[in-house]
């Protein structure tokens, strides 16, 4: 029984069957990658997990509880954090404030009317945020505007913000898309370190095979809205069906 159990999930947009019949089990404290060619339904599946979309059929259970029909912020409070393809951070706020917000959300919940507290008096939260910034090696940038960070730093900040909530499941949507090689390798190292040091499950959607094969413990291949195979990276590499449906295709495209 994995921490995330997806059973018979289907989603249709008008005439298009985006997800056919997806079954997926993500084991606790593992790194699980979902790969597939464009239009395979990866993003649709991810959106069904975080509450942005509601699947037409099937169930999604997280830690024994259904996530279906819950709003994104409720699902996040259950322990699922999401990292976006393009970093979603609070651009107009300082780096420290960016980190404070998830810390407040973790402690005070979805809404807390604290209109008369001075933010900077809250030592507990400030310490936590600063500690997280140090861990992300961004402590020296705490007073910068988040929008002025480099792409790689924005990604680090976003991952740090998610981690500061101590989620049980971290979902990453093509975390290295559009990144230079050096930034990509840094991100891989960061994610490796996170999965080694923490009790955390990581589910990652990725295009870049280099990223997938250096991180994942298990890989699910999605094609045309249905899972093709699920196996360890080594077996996936040699799997004829996968080569045909996916790897072959990317080689052609490249």
């Amino acid at each position: 029984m994995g921490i995330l159990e997806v059973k018979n999930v289907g989603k249709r947009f008008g005439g298009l069957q985006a997800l056919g019949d997806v079954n997926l089990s993500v084991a606790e404290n593992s790194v699980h990658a979902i790969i597939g060619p464009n239009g395979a339904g990866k993003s649709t599946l991810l959106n069904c997990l975080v509450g942005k979309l509601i699947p037409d059929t099937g169930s999604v259970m997280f830690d024994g509880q259904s996530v279906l029909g819950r709003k994104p912020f409720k699902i996040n409070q259950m322990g699922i954090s999401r990292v976006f393809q393009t970093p979603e951070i609070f651009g107009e706020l300082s780096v420290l404030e960016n980190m404070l917000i998830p810390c407040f959300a973790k402690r005070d919940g979805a809404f807390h009317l604290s209109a008369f507290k001075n933010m900077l008096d809250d030592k507990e939260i400030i310490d936590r945020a600063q500690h997280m910034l140090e861990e992300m090696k961004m402590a020296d940038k705490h007073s910068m505007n988040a929008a002025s960070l480099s792409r790689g730093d924005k990604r680090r900040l976003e991952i740090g913000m998610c981690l500061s909530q101590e989620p049980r499941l971290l979902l990453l949507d093509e975390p290295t898309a559009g990144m230079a090689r050096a930034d990509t390798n840094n991100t891989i190292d960061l994610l490796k370190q996170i999965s080694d040091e923490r009790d955390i499950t990581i589910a990652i959607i990725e295009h870049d095979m280099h990223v997938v094969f250096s991180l994942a413990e298990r890989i699910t291949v999605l094609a045309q809205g249905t899972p093709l195979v699920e196996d360890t990276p080594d077996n996936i590499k040699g799997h004829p069906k996968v080569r045909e449906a996916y790897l072959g295709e990317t080689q052609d495209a490249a």
Partner: protein
Amino acid sequence: MLKLNKRDTLLFVIVTAMVLLAPFLLNPFPQGSSMAQMFNAGYPDLMQRFVIFGILVIGFNILFGLTGYLSFGHAAFLGIGSYAAVWMFKLLSMNIIPALILSMIIAGIFSLAIGYVSLRRSGIYFSILTLAFAQMSYNLAYSVLGNPSSSYNLTNGETGLQLALDDPRILDGAAAANGALPVTKLFGLAMRDSYNLNVGGWLFTFNVGYYVAGILMLISFYVSIRIFRSPFGMMLRAVKSNQQRMNYTGLNTKPYTLAAFVISGMYAGLAGGLLSSMDPLAGAERMHWTASGEIVIMAILGGVGTLIGPIVGAGFNEYFKNILSKINDGVLHQWLSFLPDGLENFIVGILHYFVGKGWHLTLGLLFMLVIIFLPGGLVEGGQRLAKMFKSKKTDDESDSNNTPAE
């Protein structure tokens, strides 16, 4: 001091000093001089408007400045507050305290209801929804609920809601013996009482109503500083910055925006109640959507999202409205009399459209210029000027903090 940091304390002290000393500051010219007629602004009526509109825009800024939700219907709450206060004067007592409390409560209830519906949508939809609600409130107040012959005449329509001798006024007892309408007061102090100080050629007026409103504005200002510096204020700025990230960080944006909407609605209610406290007459035109537009204009002129901007904007708008509407062709001729006659007439002929009754045009143009060139308002303009002077002194210090781009 007062649990504010150093800079905020300084700001608050400066504003406090300006509010308390306004009767001096606004009357720089001796009484009776031509400059005084034009530029002095130390009359109770005008000073009251400075601080009351200050409260209104401070509240509006908590919504628009922090969350970015542009309400085009805030005047509705101002009008609702005015009506509530006049009803309190009619029914209960001429003391302004119950009236102000009721104004804030009623405006709060209305803003809760209107905000709940309007905040289901964001962006332009939100602006249009608030506009529709405000215009509906205006129509209700102007005609539907203001028909003097009907049994539910809450607003007295076109004439406006005003005091009458036969109002019950439960706490105050019988009407004044001389048959005159009673005046609004804070316990023993009548709002319209003034103390005049003659110094040389100068006349300074210290009006009770102004100081009551001024102190309430200072309290409002203090509250707004605290909100800006609180975790709640940060969450509101986060709403403006990225709602998606809010949602995926386990935060429910709706109660945050609704709380901001209600708080700013209550500020508007307080301002409306104060307007009625200074002059117990409430009319529907206060709720018209052009009045809402004027609130937006004041906020933008001053500087949205800054602490001091709303006060600057409200003061600037009221002051220049006052001056511009006083200037007429005669004054212009007098000022430009040093020019050759033809040129003088030509310039006066052009300026004619921008002063006197044409002040709307001038403020409209100014408003456009500010949005186009100075989106941060006058406060940003001041900061830019300050920076220019600073950078002349220390030219090489810049660029040390910048990080390399990706």
